[in-house]
């Protein structure tokens, strides 16, 4: 039974300055952002993973397709994985036409998000610079700029003088070991408050009747008719999931996990082209604002932006060896510091306050795996590497459509799992290896 989500519940109060003032004056408290629900024995669809992807998927299932009998399951708390560990950069200046179209849609959805979800996600479109330190990388920047322009995305190559104007703290002289030769400038790129995106989708989905279940770990996926043991594998179909809180029957299971995507998919007998690597990040103590744009250097393996709180947030490339540990390493911060100081020698006295890492599911072609699998009813939205956050809205929208209609929307055709059977990989490597 698919109910109309909008009628499911009484609408909770909207967020606004007036409501803040009213509640402040009266000393009233706000209702819960999402309900605490009892876990039912059956749902129309189960989404595994309560991060931005899973929550966006649930939101769009309800909003666009009227599917509100949906449970989002997370083994920890909402946003505990990559959603809360990324560096919150949003951009659409990809290399392939498929990538550009897809991420352009995502940027568009981010632009509307604050109003649509009625929560301030603080999308700061402050501009995004991808620096080139060699003629080869400058050539790739030009390539990206041309493909971007054809896809209607605002993106161009600028020289050191313009870079200095956009971002005075960068050393654009010829003193560094690898001088800055140019940059791909992408004005719509920027940063978002990542946690607010999680909470916003959760709250909006909750309002339509979707249930969020934290501390609910999926331990198996129940299948029948497949060619593997227990009815799993190709040719079979999903019948439910087993969790630490009991079994749930459902015809649709959507794997929206990161870090654990291959383990979850294996539960349905689906093998993925994924290896899991930690991606580390770090933040400094705050200082007054001085870095107006997001700065990325692929050659130096670093990306950096300054938060509204004044901290510099950094990231780099994934750790070199596959593993599921998120403890972080000293060599990461050492390398990071060296590269940041190559770009901005003036920040030598800033102090690293905290480092952390999250798990990334890397695919061979730096593109995600999305859509239906050989197991009917089991969909994946995985393999997001280091760029999953920026794709969350569009991924949720498209996967919801795939799940609700049984089709494969055009925007995600190129990202099908079957491309690895056919050898038809996506050519995004040049832009995404250290692209944030």
């Amino acid at each position, binding site marked *: 039974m698919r109910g109309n989500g909008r009628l499911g519940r009484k609408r909770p109060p909207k967020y606004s300055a007036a409501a803040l003032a009213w509640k402040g004056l009266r000393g009233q408290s706000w209702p819960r*952002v999402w309900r605490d629900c009892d876990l039912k024995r059956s749902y129309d669809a189960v989404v595994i993973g309560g991060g931005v992807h899973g929550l966006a998927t649930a939101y769009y299932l309800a909003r666009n397709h009227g599917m509100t009998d949906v449970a989002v399951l997370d083994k920890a708390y909402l946003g505990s994985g990559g959603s809360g560990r990324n560096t919150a950069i949003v951009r659409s200046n990809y290399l392939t036409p498929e990538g550009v179209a897809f991420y352009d849609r995502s940027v568009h959805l981010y632009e509307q998000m*604050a109003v649509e979800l009625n929560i301030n996600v603080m999308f700061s479109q402050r501009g995004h610079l991808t620096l080139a330190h060699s*003629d080869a990388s400058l050539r790739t920047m030009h390539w990206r700029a041309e493909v971007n322009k054809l896809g209607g995305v605002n993106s161009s190559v600028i020289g050191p003088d313009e870079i200095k104007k956009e971002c005075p703290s960068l050393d654009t002289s010829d003193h560094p070991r690898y001088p800055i030769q140019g940059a791909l400038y992408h004005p719509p790129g920027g940063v978002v408050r990542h946690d607010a995106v999680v909470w916003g989708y959760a709250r909006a989905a909750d309002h339509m009747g979707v249930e969020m279940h*934290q501390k609910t770990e999926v331990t198996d996926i129940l299948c029948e008719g497949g060619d593997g043991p227990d009815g799993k594998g190709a040719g079979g179909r999903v019948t439910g999931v087993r969790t630490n809180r009991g079994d749930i029957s459902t015809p649709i299971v959507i794997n929206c996990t990161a870090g654990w995507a291959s383990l979850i998919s294996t539960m349905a007998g689906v093998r993925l082209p994924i290896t899991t690597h930690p991606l580390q990040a770090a933040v400094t103590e705050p200082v007054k604002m001085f870095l107006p744009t997001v700065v990325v250097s692929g050659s130096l393996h670093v990306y950096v932006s300054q938060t509204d709180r004044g901290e510099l947030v950094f990231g780099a490339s994934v750790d070199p060896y596959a593993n599921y540990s998120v403890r972080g390493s000293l060599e990461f911060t050492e390398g990071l510091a060296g590269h940041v100081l190559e770009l901005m020698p003036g920040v*030598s006295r800033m102090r690293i306050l905290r480092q952390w890492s999250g798990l990334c599911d890397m695919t061979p072609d730096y593109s995600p795996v999305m859509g239906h699998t050989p197991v009917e009813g089991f969909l994946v939205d995985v393999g997001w590497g280091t760029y999953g956050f920026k794709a969350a809205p569009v991924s949720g929208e498209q996967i919801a459509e795939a799940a609700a209609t049984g089709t494969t929307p055009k925007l995600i055709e190129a990202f099908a799992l079957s491309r690895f059977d056919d*050898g038809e990989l996506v050519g995004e490597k040049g832009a995404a290896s250290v692209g944030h």
Partner: protein
Amino acid sequence: MTMSRQGVQPTEVIDRAAKLRFRWNGKRFSGFEGDTIASALAAAGEHIFSRSMKYHRPRGILTADYWDPNLMVQVGDDPNVRAGHRLLESGMDVRSQNAWPSLNRDIKAANSLLGRFLTAGFYYKTFMRPQWLWPTYERVLATFAPGGKIDLDTPHAYHDKRYTHPDVVVAGAGPAGISAALAASSAGASVLLVSHEHAVGGHLRYSSDAADQAALTELRAALDASDVEVLTDSTVTGRYEDNWLGIVQRNHPIAVERLIKARAKTLVAAPGLIERPYVFEGNDRPGVITPGAARRLINLWGVKPGERAVVFSANADGDAAVADLERVGTEIAAVIDGRTGGSVSSTAGSSRAVEAVMVNGTNGAERIDADLLVVAAGWTAPTSLLNMAGDRPIYDPTAARFFPSDPPSNVLATGGLAGDADLDGLRQHGAATGRLAAARAAAVRHRLQSRTARALPVDGDEPAWAPDERAPLGRDPHPELYRADTHGMVDMSEDISSKDLVAAAHEGYDSVELAKRYTTATMGPSQGKLETVNTVAAIAEARGETISEVGTTVWRPPYAPLTLGALAGRMFEPVRVSSIQPWHEANNVSVIQAGQWLRPDHYGDPAAEVRNVRDNVGLIDVTPLGKLDLRGPDVPKLLSLLYVNKWMKLGVGRVRYGMMCAEDGVVLDDGVTGRLGEDHYMMSTTSSGAGGVWEWVENWLQTERPDWQVHVTPVTTAYASINVAGPKSRELMSRVCEDADLDAEAFPYMTVRQATVAGVEDCFMWRIGFTGELSFELHVPAGHGLHVWEALMDAGSDLGVGPFGLEGQRIMRLEKGHFIVGQDTDGLTLGPSTGLWSLIKLDKDDFAGKPELAWAADRSLPMVVAIQPDDPDVVPEEAAQIVRGNTNEILGRITSSRYSPTLNRSICLGQVEPDLAAGGTKLTVLLESGERIGATVIDHHAHFDPAGERLRG
């Protein structure tokens, strides 16, 4: 609160004879050597040091140590300096950070009035509309960013790094830590003792107790007499895999800050305990301090913290503070005992100072006038290093703090982290921990040595892993004091109150992580060392659960912040140049970065360089070209396996071009390989591929074909490589080459010869040419590169010999239609896309990528083609897209383009859809300017001399 310097204290660390002058917000101040910035200011009567982040409330001393969130200041160009820890230096320019226009009058303090609206996370609920105004809102919010200012001209000063491999590292130099270090050292271990403070001793330093002072003297003497290496003002910031430790040394004599990397065989964590603030109304008013702050001010720096004090004490530290305060003449208005149910509910006064305290003691509720409130409410166990080692500490409600659960066996806790005892008990536990650490370190040392094949042999069997037989420390009962019956600040640096946390929990942000993220509690400079447990307590209270049920958050590295400068160190970035570089530099070279290499790009006029090669003869330094010396009977099999073409019948003295594909069929590298002798081959790779191909070769040999006899030696930098190209190259070579017949029949195209060149023996040269001209590629022992280059220049002066650079070579190779792997191909370009179908020999039994290349015949693949714009004067950019007519549909792209000085027209290589690859196909190229131009695919890749007559000449 009135603070002032008192008479000499027996334990003080200041040198009253050494007066230091400094500035505070522009005004002149002075202090003594041994003062911290904060103690000097406090001694001078200052009591406001900063303003809070959101409400801009005045903030005074809280803990008077490194973790004090209220003592963040700017010193010169150094932001966020901890004034509670940083030692005063003469001439310091100290400024407050988060106040405008001044610390005393701060406009944003008006925000306090809006407190009820500015609840934690309020910004998520507003500023959504109108959307276009958000950037403006954002700029305003950003002005609330706390912290100091950076000066973008700050130089990256000297920072070195140190590596050390001690048996035992002891983190923390209180009595337990010192005892551990001494015992480990006595047991024969090499020991590094790391003291966060400026001197060892931990809490003994600021104790006025005679027994404590005697013990401190004794421990220091023992350390002096031992082999223990002591680092002061240094912190173990992180424990990483296999006890890899980051240590920041802040008092290095030369480096501003130094990172020490220690591979400890065992780590002893003895960081002591951190005083936990108590949450009640007005707990952030200047004048509310911890007992540690009071005792440090009095005993270390001779500063009286106030005139009339209320002490809320729930432990011995609070009691000791009473004694110390009385000794310096602070009137004790009341002692409220937290162990017997006494409590503090609020302070009263102005925003700038405590004037009275509301207590609930033995006399019931009363208001007591005081300018100082000392609150001894308990401790937080800084379990960071244990967390980093994977431990999840467990809360003990009877002792009101967390304790280690099950750290890995090469990480041992002692001191307050492990439990409570009197001084002797702490020393005994420390010593037992040190002995255990030494015994386990000995086992690890033995193992490391015995597992290293080429290390010195190690005697005997590996010592058994020593069992932990330490008598555990006790746990003193302590009341659970987190929040009084009023609400107050939980996070001073973020302005987050217990009310905010409770509201957040009720709103659904009811796990610690969610609440932290929503409210930003614990995100400030001490990263929760003061705030975390109170945060957990507030959430627990809101949920009606215990602290154990709510659990704690994971403490992440670093334990203490460290500068980017220290982490970066000296920033060594190697530069590679050939032995001929001095000549290039003396001859107006313009260099290009190619990975780590600096290569000659041109010498002023690349077009002229091209013409000179086409007309006369030119030299190019191609030293970075990858070179692998391959020897052994199975080399032909190896070449056949790695290249797509055939190699079994290459004769001695012959050279062949080969293309390598990866197992997915994608072009990996290309180059020529020559057979120098019966079992001796030289493989060349692209310059950028040199390292990767070497590993690729080793991988195949070692993992797939370990039975093959091939020895691989990388010789890229063992030879300087010079390509001599042009119609007069044979004439030039004949003048310098003494023992080889250079005649076209004797030394034809695609052959290799060994020769003596310009008197240099053991050179080899092959007749190949990327430029399309008659050419000789010379490889001379690297040390003789410059000599041979100069000899060629001298010998050919009458032939018009000149240098040419990479740019000239690129033009000429493009004229010849040679593709460059990685430029004209990309990460998805399969072998056949290069147009070299005939090179791929699918009848070979096996070679890398064979199945994909076989199946590629049935696939629709983009093709590399040569393209000429219809307008010969227009050079499309490398990256210009090839589109369908006036649409935006992408059909390919230009991968290389130049203006050809030989043909006087623009020439290109590009990748296009397969149905556009035939010669004569008309294309539309979209220039960066937006203009669309016509272009035509030509029949073959070579724009110039397609028959190859010149290079065979």
